[in-house]
């Protein structure tokens, strides 16, 4: 966004833009028709009344001490799932990043990149559904699902960090006779560690958000509570869970924004 004010004449008739606009609006309208969804129907009096009635059932939320205690457990479980998954994934990703960065030849690089892409293109929820089959209902399935997805993301990011890292310091160690492992641990890792940490924290933030909803397929945390309460048509309890989710997400958002500001400040 330049600060200058453009002095070009207004653009003349543009056939391509017009065509594209027509195509996009045509496709949008046909989507509504395909789904037999008339936006006007949503704003009729009856629909509004139904909605209001439905929302009304969620108030007031259940704030009894017993239930809040359960919610607290749910929040802790959600945090534990996301933290564990991120931690395990980060540790494994350091290993994966070696072939991804091309240290073991082009074939290993291609294979490991494909592996990472595969892991991260399957959505967390699908992994969770699969893991529920593999280890049964419960938070462990959620942890595994998040670990798998995060491994794909972090493996790739770590690999790229490693690739962009100058190899001079680790070369110096190798040339002066240290082993490959030692040169990696003392020559390379310290210089990329802050970057890896910041990627991991960022992923943890995403994972907290994900962990709140993985429960819908039975993988523990707040989501499982919500699904359970809604199945029993206990709206008051469900609304407490939703409020807890919202607070968790907002809080995590605020903390990470604050941390990022501090980091920016430190960098100048």
């Amino acid at each position: 966004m330049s600060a200058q004010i453009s002095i070009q004449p207004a653009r003349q008739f543009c056939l391509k833009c017009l065509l594209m606009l027509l195509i996009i609006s045509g496709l949008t309208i046909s989507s509504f028709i395909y789904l037999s969804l008339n936006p006007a129907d949503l704003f009729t009096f009856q629909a509004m009344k139904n909605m209001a009635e439905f929302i009304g059932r969620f108030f007031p939320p259940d704030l009894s001490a017993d239930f809040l205690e359960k919610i607290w457990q749910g929040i802790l479980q959600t945090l534990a799932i996301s933290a564990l998954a991120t931690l395990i994934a980060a540790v494994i990703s350091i290993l994966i990043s070696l072939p991804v960065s091309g240290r073991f030849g082009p074939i290993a690089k291609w294979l490991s990149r494909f592996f990472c892409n595969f892991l991260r293109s399957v959505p967390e929820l699908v992994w969770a559904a699969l893991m529920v089959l593999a280890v049964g209902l419960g938070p462990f399935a959620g942890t595994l699902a998040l670990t798998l997805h995060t491994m794909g993301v972090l493996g790739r990011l770590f690999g790229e960090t490693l690739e962009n890292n100058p190899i001079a310091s680790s070369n110096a160690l190798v040339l002066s006779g240290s082993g490959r492992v030692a040169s990696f641990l003392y020559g390379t890792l310290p210089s990329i560690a802050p970057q890896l940490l910041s990627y991991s924290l960022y992923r943890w933030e995403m994972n907290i958000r994900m962990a709140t909803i993985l429960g819908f397929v039975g993988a523990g945390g707040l989501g499982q509570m919500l699904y359970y309460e809604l199945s029993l048509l206990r709206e008051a309890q469900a609304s407490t869970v939703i409020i807890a989710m919202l607070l968790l997400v907002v809080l995590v958002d605020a903390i990470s924004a604050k941390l990022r500001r501090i980091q920016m400040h430190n960098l100048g």
Partner: protein
Amino acid sequence: MAICILWPMLQLAQFEPMLLIDPNNTKVMGDFLVQFIPPNIQLEFLSLVLKATVETLAMATAGIALAMIIAVPLGLIISYSLSISRIGPTSDHQLAQFVRFIARTLMLVLRGIPEIVWALLLVRVFGLGPIAGVLAIAITYGGMLAKVYSEILESGNTLPARALILSGSGRVASFLYGLLPNSAQELASYTIYRWECAVRASVVMGFVGAGGLGQLMDQSMKMLNGGEVSTILIVFLGLVLLADYISLVIRKQLV
């Protein structure tokens, strides 16, 4: 210290790696995974998948269209660069602040609750099917788009709009003539990027019964039909790539 934190965490997450090699579980999983190859490519099933794919795309498109209807007014209300009340001491300063506060809170609630939660709730109102999914996308992405729209409007060159407002034009007019010409590109490009995300999200929302590919996958998974699941997964990955590509092409045209 690490152990002090890790141990309760492992407990809370019921971390039991042994479950992974429990013979019962490995048998179920093994039987399921073996069916993945070959993927189910019977014509009857493929036509079902195709229908679900089109439905997924339609859900994302309609959802984003509705999201824009929510986002444009919200974004305009919130954006400071169109604030008349900030020009000078006017009587409705308090009111403007109040309206803005309400709009911001509404936006936070809309986008703070994950789309799949909205879908789960809306399925109860509108029944199983894509309509709940469309509305869930509209609500969550409406909140997100509103936030980003207002940020884009504030980050651009706001002087023309300011000049218009100061010389007495209304908010809408100064938006149309002062802000839109400069930031239209960025607004459109971000909207299309969000469409791409909506395609991805609409797949996932099927898991709570909100239509599209996800619902199909959920059904196949519950019946432990590996062949069908692998077909749907392949189609899903293809769809995500396609959406990526389409959004890239359109955004390139915009530049």
